[in-house]
């Protein structure tokens, strides 16, 4: 008997079903649970109230990233609430026996940066975290998605989740990215095409030559922002690029176990005749550097383009949302974004805070100086990224250019740790969300790639990075 062709998603899903009953969601086993300080305290509280233990501390890893200062001396923390929250995760990890990559740890970092770099994130796994950007880990051919705090408690207690099966969507990206156009531009281009709810109910699998040619770090950037299109998760089939990245990492299998794992992982890619519930096509060749003009990531245009006119939108509530966004951003329909003055540049986050992102930013900043009056924060995604960047001289390039070179954390992506915009300020940011107030109340965000962010740092205005590339 030959089984029906299956997608990458189907294979992982089937392999993790604990029980499937009619009229009930599937009970799915979770291989790896990542935990951070913001979405976990109420879950640990719940365990205490019920007298429960963490079922699998050996499959649970915690870090501190959201509310942690990125200034050189991280402690003492001025904000008493942040300090209390950080103290709480330290206590919770101690009490429940969970390894913590905390303040002072050489492996501290943004949860979605440290999982892959420690080799915890592996193909074929189910991975969850109380954080929507858990979709990042799908770059390895894992099924990884964000959950709320109740579900964090469920996984802590049972290592399982109740899930209704999502539908599958193939996102096929033809062609190759042009010079100066990055993985960030690819994903912003996709979200602009399908809208911020365009992926709701689906798990994306990215396929096609443009995806296959991306490095692991670029693939993580793409999968990271799947959630900004509303997708439950984003995935990329594992291949030699994946295995090469993982080989030798601390938690990756070794020796014979590695050989066996690679053999297993090679069976994961979608079967040739596997059917997806939906397919979206994108042509990488036609993409330009992208920049957002509005207050959700779908409000993005090619950097040479003009701000669209809400009057051209027929749906009333969509039109109102766009008008509201332009009021908030203080932009006019028909206006070019090129040349628009900016106040702050933020380079970092789980989207673009890895070594290759910093290399790209440094390639623009090297030998140049930040425009007077512009504040530039470069925040590595992890302490490991920081050390690697310093070892190859990137830290020095940032400092010599006049940027701030910080300790690792989420920083100005979510503005919980004191790194934030002032009301009315404009930022070019390599993060993932341009929602109203996301980077500080009243702050205005233009999302873009590390290249575009670095170009704006030099000129003080939104600039096509291709003008500054060798």
């Amino acid at each position, binding site marked *: 008997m030959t089984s029906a062709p299956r997608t990458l998603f189907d294979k992982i899903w089937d392999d993790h079903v604990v029980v499937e009953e009619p009229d009930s969601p599937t009970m799915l086993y979770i*291989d790896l649970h990542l935990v951070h300080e913001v979405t976990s*305290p109420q879950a640990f509280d719940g365990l205490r109230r019920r007298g429960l233990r963490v079922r699998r501390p050996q*499959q649970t890893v915690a870090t501190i990233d959201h509310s942690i200062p990125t200034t050189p001396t991280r402690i003492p923390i001025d904000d008493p609430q942040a300090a*209390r929250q950080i103290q709480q995760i330290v206590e919770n990890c101690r009490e429940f026996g969970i390894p913590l990559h905390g303040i002072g740890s050489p492996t501290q970092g943004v949860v979605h940066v440290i999982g892959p770099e420690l080799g915890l994130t592996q193909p074929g796994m189910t991975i969850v975290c109380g954080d929507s950007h858990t979709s990042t880990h799908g770059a390895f051919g894992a099924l990884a998605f964000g959950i709320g705090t109740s579900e964090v408690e469920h996984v802590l207690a049972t290592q399982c989740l*109740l899930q209704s099966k999502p539908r599958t969507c193939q996102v096929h990206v033809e062609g190759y990215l042009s010079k100066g156009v990055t993985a960030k531009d690819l994903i912003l281009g996709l979200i602009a095409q399908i809208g911020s*709810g365009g992926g709701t109910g689906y798990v994306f699998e990215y396929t096609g030559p443009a995806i296959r040619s991306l490095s692991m770090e670029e693939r993580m950037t793409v999968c990271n922002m799947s*959630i900004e299109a509303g997708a439950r998760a984003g995935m990329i089939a594992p291949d030699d690029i994946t295995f090469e990245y993982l080989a030798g990492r601390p938690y990756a299998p070794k020796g014979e176990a590695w050989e066996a794992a690679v053999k297993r992982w090679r069976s994961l890619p979608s079967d040739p005749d596997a059917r997806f519930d939906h397919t979206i096509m994108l042509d990488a060749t036609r993409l330009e550097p992208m920049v957002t003009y509005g207050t959700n990531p779908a409000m993005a245009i090619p950097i040479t383009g003009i701000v669209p006119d809400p009057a051209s939108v027929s749906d009333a509530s969509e039109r109102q949302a766009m008008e509201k966004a332009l009021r908030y951003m203080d932009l006019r329909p028909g206006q070019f974004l090129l040349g628009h003055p900016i106040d702050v540049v933020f380079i970092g986050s789980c989207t673009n805070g890895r070594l290759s992102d910093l290399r790209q930013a440094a390639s623009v900043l090297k030998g140049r100086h930040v425009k007077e009056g512009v504040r530039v924060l470069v925040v590595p995604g992890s302490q490991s990224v920081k050390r690697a960047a310093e070892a190859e001289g990137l830290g020095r390039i940032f400092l010599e250019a006049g940027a701030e070179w910080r300790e690792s954390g989420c920083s100005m992506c979510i503005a*919980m740790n004191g790194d934030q915009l002032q009301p009315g300020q404009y930022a070019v940011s390599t993060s993932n969300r341009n929602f109203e*107030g996301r980077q500080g109340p009243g702050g205005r965000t233009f999302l873009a790639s590390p290249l575009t962010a670095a170009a704006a740092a030099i000129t003080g205005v939104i600039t096509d990075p291709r003008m500054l590339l060798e």
Partner: protein
Amino acid sequence: MQPFTRITSRVVALPIDNIDTDQIIPARFLKTIHKEGLGQHLFADWCYNPDGSPKPDFPLNQPEARAAHILLVGENFGCGSSREHAPWALIDFGFRAVISTSFADIFRNNALKNGLLPVVVDPDTHRRLFELAKADPSIVLTLDLAEQSLILPDGKSVHFPIDAFNKKCLLEGIDPLGYLLKQEPLIQAYEASHPARVNIRIMEE
């Protein structure tokens, strides 16, 4: 979890698409380690000026909003972050249900686990509800979960979908964690036949 059976209530209308969780509860209020007390920060940046004074035009600041248990919003409500603080804040303010044409996946999951009912209606009903609420902000709607019906002011009833499991949990106030814990033998059987794909202890020793 508080059971949800049937409510009859006034409505607060926010005719905006893609309301993200950063608007529902801005990140600076996520430094709490508790679930309670978030209602005062619900839609904080839309409710209040930077000096803390209320924005008089915002629907939530109208006196009748305090008595409303139903929020009517544009499509793709709750997009963005996974913060469960969003449904906690909505419930703490007094809401028991949200009506839209679509919800972001994680928000919907989080809402259901807290007894906040996400009601999906068709675009025509959705448009009609906004028209009714605009013409008369004091309109009253009824939501009957057992019947899965939304009853409009003219008595007309509209069916809304919900899966059997979540419906039962909401009607009876059942916490799904209890259900998961009862499956312990099945979890053990799964673990016995599937070696752990990662073991963090091994590396540390």
